[in-house]
């Protein structure tokens, strides 16, 4: 009887081992994202990009032969919801790594939970400087921080345009104000005189009074921090008034997306803008990803999508190098990351008061013949920049 029990036990143990060897388990990754609410558009883009990446990874045999199974939880861009989702993931589902979220507010909430529960968190597209300045050991960020967004533009201005004066126009929100402040400081450090620094209310109909004042001041560079509809109205009315600055530069979001060109049309020509990524970058996989996305969804993705897509490759890379798939094992592997993705090189460094921060060159785009082209830094350029640009009168 005793012998039978031993045999049965042995058979049972063997079969369990066998099954675990034969069919490798799935690796489940739940990603918190804003899929409803104001940020839903970005959440959607990121979700699609994660899915493209997971498909590719599984087609090539998964992560250490484990199939990567994705699912998504909607945080609605609300920090408290994001926090609750991540608490559940770590406490009950025992997920050893957290990837995702979009808004900085949500990422902050998630980072706090991850650090408290000692689980690594990979920040994908949240820009607030604060997130990686809190001495968190378990929080990693692969996108550039807000303070460095304008680096590329400043560099371009310094080396090519060499202006003496500048006018800064910005919308009266936190985003607009911080962008304008950062640029004013950079301009001062570079010895550029800021002649005008004016805010406006987002959604204004008529910018011409403000712009005629700008015209009278005759600045060399006009720098604008706006969302998309204000950005195109501003450029349209600048064209109407024929304000001939040496350079029109956009601070961020509003100028860097295709809708800007669609709406402002020929008024958008030669406008430069900062961005973090473009499909024209020569990193392996960048173009393929962008083409695949466009084929499936009809439009090129912005840096948000590219970062999400690459985040899964960074995760895969860390999981493959990790000694074991515990939070600490993965954390140590992430810290040692040194890889190149479609988003660019990823390496988590501690410097300038940031921890586990990836520093990537920011790019400058210029609208040339109705397309966004990468023009700066020169090593990434897809087209030579157009400078000096023709005056409005000559453009007809």
């Amino acid at each position: 009887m005793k012998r039978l029990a031993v045999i049965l036990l042995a058979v049972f143990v063997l079969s369990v081992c066998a099954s675990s060897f034969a069919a490798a388990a799935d690796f489940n990754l739940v990603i918190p994202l804003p899929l409803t609410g104001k940020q839903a558009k970005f959440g959607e883009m990121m979700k699609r990009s994660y899915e493209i990446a997971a498909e590719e990874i599984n087609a090539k045999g998964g992560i250490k032969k484990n199939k990567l199974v994705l699912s998504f939880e909607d945080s609605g861009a609300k920090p408290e919801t994001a926090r609750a989702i991540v608490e559940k993931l770590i406490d009950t589902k025992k997920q050893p790594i957290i990837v995702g979220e979009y808004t900085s507010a949500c990422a902050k909430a998630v980072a706090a939970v991850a650090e408290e529960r000692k689980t690594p968190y990979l920040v994908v597209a949240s820009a607030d400087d604060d997130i990686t300045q809190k001495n968190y050991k378990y929080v990693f960020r692969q996108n550039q921080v807000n303070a460095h967004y304008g680096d590329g533009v400043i560099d371009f201005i310094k080396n090519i345009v060499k202006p003496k004066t500048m006018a800064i126009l910005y919308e009266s929100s936190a985003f607009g104000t911080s962008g304008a402040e950062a640029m004013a400081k950079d301009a001062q450090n570079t010895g550029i005189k800021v002649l005008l620094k004016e805010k406006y209310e987002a959604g204004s109909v008529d910018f011409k009074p403000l712009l005629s004042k700008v015209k009278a001041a005759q600045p060399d560079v006009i720098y604008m921090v706006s969302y998309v509809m204000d950005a195109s109205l501003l450029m349209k009315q600048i064209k109407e008034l024929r304000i001939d600055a040496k350079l029109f530069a956009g601070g961020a979001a509003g100028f860097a997306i295709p809708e800007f060109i669609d709406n402002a049309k020929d008024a958008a020509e030669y406008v430069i803008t900062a961005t973090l990524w473009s499909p024209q970058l020569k990193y392996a996989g960048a173009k393929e990803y962008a083409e695949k996305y466009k084929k499936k969804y009809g439009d090129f993705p912005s840096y948000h999508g590219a970062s999400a897509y690459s985040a899964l490759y960074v995760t895969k890379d860390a999981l493959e190098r990790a000694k074991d798939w515990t939070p600490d094992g993965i954390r140590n592997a992430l810290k040692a990351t040194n890889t190149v993705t479609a988003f660019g090189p990823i390496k988590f460094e501690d410097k300038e008061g940031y921890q586990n921060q990836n520093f990537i060159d920011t790019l400058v785009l210029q609208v040339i013949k109705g397309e966004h082209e990468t023009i700066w830094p020169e090593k990434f350029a897809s087209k030579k920049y157009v400078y000096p640009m023709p005056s409005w009168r000559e453009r007809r």
Partner: protein
Amino acid sequence: MTSVQLEVLLQTLISGLLLGGLYALIGIGMTLIMGVMKIINLAHGELMMVGMYIAYVLFSSFHIDPYLSIFIAAPALFLLGVLLQKFLINPVLKVEAIIPENQVILTVGIGMVLANIATIIFSSDYKTTPVDYATKAWYLSDYWKASPIELSLSMPWSVSFCVALMITAALWFFLTKTDIGKSIRATAQDKDAAMLMGVNVERMRVVTFGLGSGLVGAAGCLFIPIYYLYPDLGGQFTLIAFVITILGGLGSTVGAIVGGLILGVFESLTSTYAGMGWAPVGRFMIFVAALIFVPGGIMSLFKKKGLGK
């Protein structure tokens, strides 16, 4: 004053007048409804939004120029206004309620429903009608080579302004020369007397609400070539219409035109000389000042001097 300063001032005044003409058209619809029905239509901006969506759909599906779509959007909005008045507002007007302003609350509700329907159908994305002439402009230096200053006059803005003036003139003709127009004015002046004179007050109310809606629908078509469109855009234009109505004098068409122009010019001047962030503040300063110093609106000043009718 140097030529540069003069240029800034003149350019600002041009912008202000063009903007004011458009504001006036938005204001007229509201003031008309206000005069006849004694209620503030807080769904006014949302009705304009509906007009803009009609222009947008016509442009993107059938390539009909936004200015031509006035002929479709204005009648459509007239019909919508008539239906709203007949089946929603009139029944509420008849009910004795604790709050006397429940029709006003009803219009807020109508506005919300319209905005949400638009969100469901068109999503909350921004829409535009990218017309070819969007950034065309006339320049002073092209016509007068030796001009010491450069002024520009935007083509779509000027066209919108002129069309707005034409619509206003047509409305004035309608109100003063036609039978229905006279009945509407009679109803506005004294509802009971009009009724005794045989005016069908009920029908005049329906027509007025339709007319007000049609006017603001036309204003929407004039706005879309120079602006853009999203479902929640109504609120800010309701506010502008409201300020104009108060400034011009409740129920006065001429007052609305003058009020619109004053508001447009004042906003432009604040943008230039106080900073564009102050433009909304300027709007409310005018509003409060009008309430305190000219409670009857600009028209009451005209009447005092024997100018108004």
